[in-house]
């Protein structure tokens, strides 16, 4: 049961449907936990490590040679802003996971600054997730996770790890950086799964 606040009317939008508790943002806020790491494409690699330790690794040139696609997606940050119709270019996880033999059910995404976030592997398949390297037609800026970030737009945006350098496939779920600090293990914005217990 909500508490009614006197004199509050709000700024209503009836033309867009947002997940509960979200509001529209026109800019592109930056949220991160520390200094912006300098990640160079010359030394960047992306590594998928299976649950039995098999490694599948791409350097930048190999990664750029993979088939990429344009993505248009709405993104939802747990701090309550949403941004609609953002456009990206990236490599689908279906491409990257093709040829990876695994029985894992979960993934720990890892970033160059030590950041981690956990997701079900199924949420990275079937055209739901990418490693993105362009935003709005330009190379992805460092502040927004460049040169490459995970893009999983159907989950809250902290799952879309910036500066992503790899995925560890896991048989059982294990918590990443924010998940250990009280944020939800799955993070579906439409079910408003912001924090543990939601």
């Amino acid at each position, binding site marked *: 049961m*909500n*508490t009614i606040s006197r004199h509050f009317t*709000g700024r209503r939008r009836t033309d867009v449907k947002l997940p509960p508790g979200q509001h529209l943002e026109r800019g*592109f*806020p*930056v949220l991160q936990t520390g*200094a912006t790491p300098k990640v160079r494409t010359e030394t960047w690699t992306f590594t998928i490590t299976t649950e039995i330790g098999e490694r599948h690794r791409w350097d930048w040139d190999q990664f750029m040679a993979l088939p990429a696609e344009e993505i248009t997606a709405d993104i939802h940050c747990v701090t309550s802003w949403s941004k609609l119709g953002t456009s990206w270019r990236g490599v689908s996880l279906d491409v990257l996971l093709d040829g990876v033999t695994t029985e894992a059910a979960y993934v720990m995404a890892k970033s160059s600054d030590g950041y981690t976030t956990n997701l079900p592997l199924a949420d990275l398949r079937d055209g739901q997730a990418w490693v993105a390297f362009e935003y709005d037609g330009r190379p992805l800026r460092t502040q927004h996770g460049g040169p490459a970030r995970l893009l999983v737009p159907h989950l809250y945006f902290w799952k879309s790890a910036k500066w992503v350098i790899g995925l560890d496939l896991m048989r059982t779920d294990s918590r990443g950086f924010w998940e250990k600090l009280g944020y939800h293990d799955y993070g579906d914005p439409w079910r408003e799964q912001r924090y543990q217990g939601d």
Partner: protein
Amino acid sequence: MARAAVSGRLISGPRPWLVGTVKALTDETATARTLALDAPGWPGHLPGQHADVRLTAEDGYTAQRSYSIASAPMADRLELTVQRLDDGEVSPYLAGFAEPGDQFDLRGPIGGWFTWSPPPEPAEPPEPAEPAEPSEPAATESVEPAGAELKPLMLLAGGSGIVPLMSMIRAHGAAQSKVPVGLIYSVRSPSDVIYASELSERSVSSPLSVTYLYTRAAHRGVPPGRINAAVIATSAFPPDSSPDIFVCGPSGFVEAATSLLVEAGHEEGSIKTERFGPTGT
């Protein structure tokens, strides 16, 4: 142990919606207002954490935002300082229309990364042999080496980024902590300084030093300026003192300050940041 359990609950415990009632309002600047709230059931917080506020109109329309907590930790009460944004939806209500007695929904505390609590004071010299609980193993994790240096606390605020840092300063004051605290506080002009008189009092009564930077208009005879390497060199604790560093403010300020700190030799891992506001793209 008890301490760790309490902070664990504040980081990942249940966060039901509570009712917050406005008890008092304080205008801090022309655009920033502090709301002192009664919130029965509020579990307290760790300095640096925030709260989610949900406003509901009479017809059921809702809007939700996060606000940093300004007060030192207390049960059942908290203070939020809200900067009014002209194009905002929630801040014009909180920092404008809200009156004592008004109510809204509140949940938290949120966030377990951008937090600092005063370290426990070194234990008193042990009492002579109390043979009680002889089998109790020593709580090794709480034993600090004798004469351990206190890690200084370095705070860098841009605009209303001072709010979560003020919670740290107030918690430091409440604990009468001896940890040296340095604050570099960048605002547009002297009239935009939030908590000006309290900061000035605390810099006399506690080991706090404050450096102000005015980006648009300074005092007479003082040129305006932004954060730069010289300010970091003269006003920040040096890297070899291993300070805990917290930077909060608009994205441009945080980006500039963290880059300067890293260039000055501070470990990236010692710097925690919190940003607000869009960056364009």
